[in-house]
């Protein structure tokens, strides 16, 4: 297990290298000149000499690959450069956006669990009955509405009509997080509810459930002891993957609710072509991806005895 985790962590390195190299290259091709962008508003008349000396200072006169490795070297020393827009260090800017995204992730995951697991199980138990159809229809609707539309509806209902929650966030607080989190949870629940239902149905059709019934074990006991336990693998996989994607920030929802997190930062940076920030965002996404994949793998191994004992080839 430990050995496996270390191996997977080591795999992180080439992926990160490839991704940073790729994004660095893309930004260089796509973007306008860093120097001009930087000097544009900060200094007086810009002469060609000033531009040249600034390029030299930033190492921009060197070949692209050299530049990349210089950037990488700085990165390893903890220097991610400064934002073109705010002129503040990228690292601290990035870190300042993390708590908001973390809270949003946490709350929306909990809301998703709260909605999707009970409804999914209920729907499975009542398969093909009215309850099932109602729940599934609801999940279809939730699954078919674009995020920005859901956010507008929620704003209208909860903020304007009912006045329960604020429209725009007032800092990182539970009250402010409610609407953006609910928006995200609705879409995710709609998706997971179906998965939970399918898994539970799958489990229910297995012989042991019938056997338990035959032996007179109470249905709820079977549900809790066996069925849910068996469904947990699916659910945990889903959740870790979702946490991963949520941690990357949710561009649209964060922008609409003025939630000052990583996703909004990314959208703002992308709009302003603020490459150092974009670069940091790309790295963050890559790290999340690899780490959460690892967690999923490990949890599989931990939860599923067949994999744990090496019975099934990975």
């Amino acid at each position: 297990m430990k050995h496996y985790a270390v191996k997977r962590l080591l795999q992180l390195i080439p992926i990160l290298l490839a991704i940073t190299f790729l994004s660095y290259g893309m930004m260089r091709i796509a973007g306008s000149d860093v120097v001009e962008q930087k000097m544009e508003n900060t200094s007086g008349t810009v002469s060609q000499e000033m531009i040249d000396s600034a390029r030299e200072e930033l190492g921009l006169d060197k070949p692209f690959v050299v530049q990349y490795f210089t950037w990488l070297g700085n990165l390893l020393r903890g220097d991610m450069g400064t934002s073109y827009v705010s002129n503040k260090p990228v690292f601290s800017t990035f870190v300042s956006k993390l708590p908001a995204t973390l809270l949003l992730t946490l709350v929306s995951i909990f809301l998703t669990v709260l909605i999707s697991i009970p409804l999914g199980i209920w729907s499975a138990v009542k398969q093909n009955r009215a309850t099932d159809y109602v729940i599934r229809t609801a999940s279809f609707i939730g699954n078919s509405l674009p995020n920005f539309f859901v956010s507008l509806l929620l704003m209208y209902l909860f903020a304007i009509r009912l006045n329960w929650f604020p429209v725009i966030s007032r800092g990182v607080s539970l009250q402010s997080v409610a609407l953006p989190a609910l928006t995200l949870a609705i879409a995710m629940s709609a998706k997971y509810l179906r998965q939970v239902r399918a898994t539970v149905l799958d489990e229910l059709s297995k012989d042991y459930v019938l056997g338990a019934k035959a032996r007179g074990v109470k249905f709820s006991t079977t549900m809790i002891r066996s069925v849910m336990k068996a469904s947990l693998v699916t659910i945990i996989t889903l959740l870790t993957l979702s946490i991963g994607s949520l941690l990357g920030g949710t561009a649209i929802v964060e922008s609409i609710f003025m939630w000052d997190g990583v996703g909004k930062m990314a959208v703002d940076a992308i709009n302003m072509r603020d490459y150092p920030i974009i670069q940091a965002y790309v790295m963050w996404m890559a790290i999340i991806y690899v780490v959460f994949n690892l967690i999923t793998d490990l949890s599989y191994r931990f939860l599923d005895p067949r994999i744990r004992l090496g019975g099934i080839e990975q």
Partner: protein
Amino acid sequence: MKDTVTVRVQKVKKSGIKTRLIFFLILVAILLLVTLFANQIAPYDPYAQDLSRSMLPPSPEHWMGTDRYGRDLFSRVLVGAQTSIFATLALVGVISLFGTVVGTLCGYYGGALDSVVMRISDVCLAFPGLVFALAIAALLGGGVSNAVLALAVISWPKYARVARSQTLALKNSSFVAAARLSGSTSGQMILRHILPNILGPILVTAMLDIGTMMMELAGLSFLGLGAQPPTAEWGNMMSGGRSMLQTYPWLVLSPGFAIFLTVVIFNLLGDTVRDYMDPKNSRAR
């Protein structure tokens, strides 16, 4: 006694699924036909502006009302279907085809090819779609096709993985081993024995993916990285009319309803195809 009952239930279930399948296939066919002939069906030119007829509510004359520029919304929704649905279908088609081919080859041959391709797919999955869309928009300009390209680059690994794991499982199965013993070449093996058997899961994944991808495209349009004005595209139309949800709701509800309906139809079809292919439902076959 008990067995016969079970069999009958399964049969009923199976034929129920079949009816459902046919029903949804017809619905999708209608949808596609309407989309295909949208230009002929549309009562007005979807791009003709008439500022004197701006923001009219739905009426017999304009079924879905008009937008800010006095364009007929019903015509725009119809023609927008071409952009939205065809772009989505093209996207899903390309990535599922490409992903399946790559995944099957990786699963079948394994080795260095497999490791390299899987690492590449890791990179694609880990790369944020937004940044990709931006880079592509900056290099090639905005537009639906470039948004599709951006989404394709980050979405194909999903299919490659499904195909790869299915191939791996099949490779070790007895019938493939038998075929190998009977002297089939690798090409024959893949084409005759492996591909036909993994198409089911791929098809289901693709069907269920259509809704997701349609909304992803709409999301990119929302951020200004997708379809450009005046292209009639549902995501574009929705985001353009968004600020008038309270005052002129039809501007956002019309395209919203179109997206909703399409996604629901494709999702239902996807679900039905999955049920249909589920071996548990085919014991009676």
